[in-house]
């Protein structure tokens, strides 16, 4: 194991899959000559050439559809959205063409495409550049969605996504690109299954369900809570769809209290679905209502202090945990 950044982990995943399978190619805005808007594709053009690392014009709908068409005839495109906020321009392609093709064709055409890029709020990017799109895409049958929070998860999930024969969204986070973590060496083919959560920290008093950007927040909170004699178990979902229900239920059966901390907006957010499933399946294990900590239900303001108030933060998370612990 060696310590690398989340960005390097993604770069390694791309390079390994490009090397391994000639049908894999990468396309998106600035991925080639610019080495990636966030440098995720650094060095790939030089190594794999312009036929496989392709700069696109600003045409999200066009190049998303182009990727889907190429996937229909058996190539394995990795399409980068500079941010998933821009994927909304390609919404029709991502939710109509990619996930429906298999059904509409009676099973003839699967679409082995990976859409990846940063997702969710960053720093003061304003209302149109801060979307957490996981809950939008999660509503469409036929898409798989993962949200890696650590370098190891980023590498393992992206590799798995590229090899999956279905459309997979890999929702990264710009604010995590420079974060560091331990990852297996490159000669070990690191594959992490989709639909598998991970207990990032064991605990006994409360389950904190989190994913992507809220994972570091939850881990910090767990540290602070320990000093206040509350033992928090941190469940990193890693995938939104398929959802690892069992991991959630196992934890709740142990702790009997749940807080879901999510980077999206509250209405129809991911936590709403999880809350429903918890109370439906293991109601008897709950000693308190399920609480959610999410963004405030407003378009994201630019001002720094206001943005901090909108985002799920330590203050609100701690308050929610204490509430379910009745302390």
């Amino acid at each position: 194991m060696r310590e690398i950044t989340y960005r390097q982990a993604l770069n390694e995943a791309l390079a390994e899959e490009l090397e391994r399978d000639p049908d894999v190619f990468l396309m998106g805005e600035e991925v080639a000559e610019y080495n990636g808007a966030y440098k995720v594709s650094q060095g790939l053009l030089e190594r794999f050439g312009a036929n496989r690392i392709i700069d696109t014009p600003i045409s999200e709908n066009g190049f998303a559809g182009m990727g889907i068409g190429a996937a229909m005839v058996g190539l394995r495109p990795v399409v980068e959205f500079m941010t998933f906020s821009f994927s909304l321009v390609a919404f029709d392609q991502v939710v109509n063409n990619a996930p429906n093709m298999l059904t509409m064709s009676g099973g003839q055409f699967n679409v082995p495409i990976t859409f990846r890029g940063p997702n969710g709020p960053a720093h003061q990017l304003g209302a149109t550049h801060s979307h957490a799109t996981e809950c939008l895409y999660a509503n469409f049958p036929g898409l798989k969605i993962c949200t890696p929070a650590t370098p190891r998860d980023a590498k393992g999930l992206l590799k798995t996504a590229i090899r999956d024969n279905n459309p997979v969204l890999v929702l990264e986070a710009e604010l995590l690109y420079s974060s560091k973590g331990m990852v297996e060496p490159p000669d070990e083919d690191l594959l992490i299954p989709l639909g598998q959560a991970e207990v990032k920290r064991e605990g006994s008093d409360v389950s904190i369900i989190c994913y992507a950007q809220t994972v570091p927040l939850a881990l910090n909170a767990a540290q602070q809570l320990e000093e206040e004699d509350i033992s928090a178990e941190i469940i990193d979902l890693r995938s939104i769809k398929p959802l690892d229900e069992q991991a959630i239920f196992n934890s709740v059966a142990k702790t009997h209290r749940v807080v879901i901390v999510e980077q999206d907006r509250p209405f129809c957010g991911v936590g709403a679905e999880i809350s429903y499933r918890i109370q439906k399946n293991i109601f008897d294990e709950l000693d308190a209502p399920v609480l959610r900590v999410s963004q405030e239900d407003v378009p994201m303001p630019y001002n720094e202090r206001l943005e901090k108030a909108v985002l799920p933060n330590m203050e609100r998370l701690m308050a929610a945990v204490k509430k379910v612990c009745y302390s």
Partner: protein
Amino acid sequence: MQQAERDEVEMLSLMLLVRRFEERASQQYQSQKIGGFCHLYIGQEAVVVGAAAATRPDDYFITAYRDHAHALVKGTSANACMAELFGKETGCSKGLGGSMHFFDRKNHMYGGHAIVGAHVPLAVGMAFASKYRGEDRVTLCFFGDGAINQGAFHEALNLAALYKLPVLFICENNLFAMGTSVQRSTSLKQIVDRAEGYDIPADIVDGMNFREVRDKMAEIVGSIRKEPHPAFIEARTYRYRGHSMSDPASYRTKDELEKYRLDDPIIRLRAQLTREGKLTNEQFDKIDREAKEAALASVKFAEESAEPPLDKLYDYTFVNGSKR
């Protein structure tokens, strides 16, 4: 009969198969055997049959929702087509697609797409894959006059020209996007001028003339095979029925319809072949009868086929496994 003549008679048979199939589908829709939307290709036969005559079986075809003819000319059986309209599991899309989503992987028919213009980027991706693999295959992307104003169409044309992809864009201009004429929707004087904006070579063909369609497409497809690049054809055609089965087509006059009926592509090719001594009346009657029989037989096949089973409802959302 010479090969070329036999081929033309075969193509006439194919046009008749499309015509008689669509007429049968219309009747079945009125009998409520077919649900949802049903968009008929009647009158436009020369365009897709001309395209089939100008291309190889392994060239890719992709189109919008007026797609029954495209499947038939690529080799999907009339039985599988009618069964799909009836929603049966023997349909070309196992009853899961319906009229707007005919697919046939084996015969290189890539749909059947219902969102106007949304399949044009798919076609560009398919052409990209051909070039990526070093094939001399050509992708033929069909769409109507309504699609040329959709954003996806514009993005796709730019990508095709930028990357020099082997795709032939074919606008089946039947003068109306549902009830809206080209003059009322499009800022240009001619649809073909859209291609100029993307530096894509473009031609106009008389879409009611099989030979003109075939010859022009063959020439263009040949040049694309030699050197990958996109091209654009505006095929001027006419649909003798409404936009769909739900459309009484009150936006055009009876006189206009009558005028275009005189251009019937089937009557024209028949007249040409007859005049040239390549087709007798008896031969025509025979191939027309065969087309009618095939259309009728497809109804029986569809009626007798089973519905897709409920317990397979979740089987077509994902495929299992990953590559290697």
